[in-house]
């Protein structure tokens, strides 16, 4: 019980209990988690998954970095301004949606506008769905990361 209180009180600030096993495992696993998230995002139109689960995986890897190495180290990797820019990229979702209108059909329409629905096994084959998946993935990753960082940080803005 006391251990948890020391851990929690000093969590957002600087001092985190040194643990070689946790640090080494996190350092080893983080690239693979992010690679798996990118795989799920990029293959969202031909395999199970999509933008949301892949983005949640990438955001979870950033949360793992913040939990193990401290919030300041995580903020050093990806600052708040960078995640603001990443979240603002979601505007391009609307612009890509207009491609359906330009092709002579409704907003965000894929098959009715003449784009293909995707062939099993070929990656670049589904019209604008991969682009929409990539945008959703970036948005969800930065949103999950920002949620945890602003909830766990000790800075009080009044």
């Amino acid at each position, binding site marked *: *019980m006391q251990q*948890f*209180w020391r*851990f*929690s009180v000093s*969590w*957002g600030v600087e001092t985190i209990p040194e643990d070689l096993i946790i640090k080494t495992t996190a350092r080893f696993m983080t690239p693979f988690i992010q690679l798996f998230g990118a795989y*799920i995002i990029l293959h969202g139109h031909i395999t*199970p*998954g*999509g933008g*949301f*689960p892949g983005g*949640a*995986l990438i*955001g*979870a890897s950033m*949360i793992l970095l913040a*939990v193990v190495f401290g919030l300041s180290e995580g903020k050093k990797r990806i600052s708040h301004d960078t995640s603001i820019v990443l979240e603002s990229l979601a505007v391009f979702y609307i612009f890509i949606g207009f491609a359906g209108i330009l092709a002579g059909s409704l907003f965000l329409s894929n098959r009715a506008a003449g784009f293909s629905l995707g062939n099993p096994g070929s990656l670049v084959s589904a019209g604008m769905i991969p682009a929409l998946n990539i945008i959703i993935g970036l948005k969800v990753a930065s949103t*999950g990361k920002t*949620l*945890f960082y602003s*909830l*766990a940080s000790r800075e009080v803005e009044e």
Partner: protein
Amino acid sequence: MIWILDLLLLLYLVVCAVGVMRTDDLLSAVILFSSYSMVMAIVWQQLNAPDIAITEAAVGAGITSMLFVAAISRTSRWER
């Protein structure tokens, strides 16, 4: 015979839910809820919904439990 596995998983879900409800230690409740999400992902896979299974494993067991732990670290560990 796969229904035995399904039955065990569903029983584990019920036990986990009751445990989350009855414990006073909120950190234990978060860990129990995380394992609930992992088993729920396997149940989704048994229901032929791999998309939902991936989402449940990533969001339910990854992000939500860490948000709960952050919330506990800002408030108190024990339920009053």
